[in-house]
């Protein structure tokens, strides 16, 4: 089983991994492809990953969240070609109380962005193509 999927993500499938009658508070983060980035109109994009390391990091991040809060967390990230509006990432945290669910969900999405080896190539409406680079002032490298 991998946290990386090359087909459309289904929030309910992810949620079913963690929701239970004991865990009444469920917080979901869903990241979808926006139609603009770095001042350009986005046509579509491609996510690629260093698969085995990405899975190891996902697993580690979720274990960290579950040890820090009384919560269960599930997550999936899309790879391959995505269109505007497609869901790129889903994180679901379920806990008996909402504070733990919010905190665990936020911890996991922040850690995914910081630690999981995934890259995004954007294809713009003007025909240009760029690598998304959160460390660059322009937000993208060509």
């Amino acid at each position, binding site marked *: 089983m991998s946290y990386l999927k090359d087909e459309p993500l289904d929030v309910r499938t992810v949620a079913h991994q963690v929701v239970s009658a004991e865990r009444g508070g469920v917080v979901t983060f869903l990241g979808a492809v926006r139609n603009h980035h770095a001042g350009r109109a986005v046509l579509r994009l491609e996510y690629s990953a260093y698969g085995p390391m990405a899975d190891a990091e996902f697993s580690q991040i979720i274990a960290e969240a579950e040890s820090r809060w009384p919560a269960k967390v599930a997550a999936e990230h899309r790879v391959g070609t995505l269109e505007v509006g497609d869901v790129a990432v889903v994180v679901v945290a379920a806990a008996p109380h909402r504070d733990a669910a919010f905190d665990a969900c936020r911890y996991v999405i922040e850690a995914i962005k910081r630690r999981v080896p995934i890259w995004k*190539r954007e294809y713009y409406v003007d025909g240009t193509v760029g690598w998304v680079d959160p460390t660059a002032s322009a937000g993208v490298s060509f």
Partner: protein
Amino acid sequence: MRIRVLLFARYAELMGQTELGIEVDAPATVRTVLDTLRARAGGAQLPPSPMVARNQVHAQLDTALEDGDEVAVLPPLAGG
């Protein structure tokens, strides 16, 4: 010793390959591998301190290597 190097995304584009095997003298660190890459075609454009991983775990430039290790050079992450 032999090191398997993985390149991704923009760095794979810069160097025109996604994977290569290199020989370095022991003792070696991640920095040794990067210096070797910089001498190859396209390698001069790698940044001074890229994010790196050793055997699929985040590492530092001075992380020591062993024969048979896998070193990945990771462009700025953009998942999520």
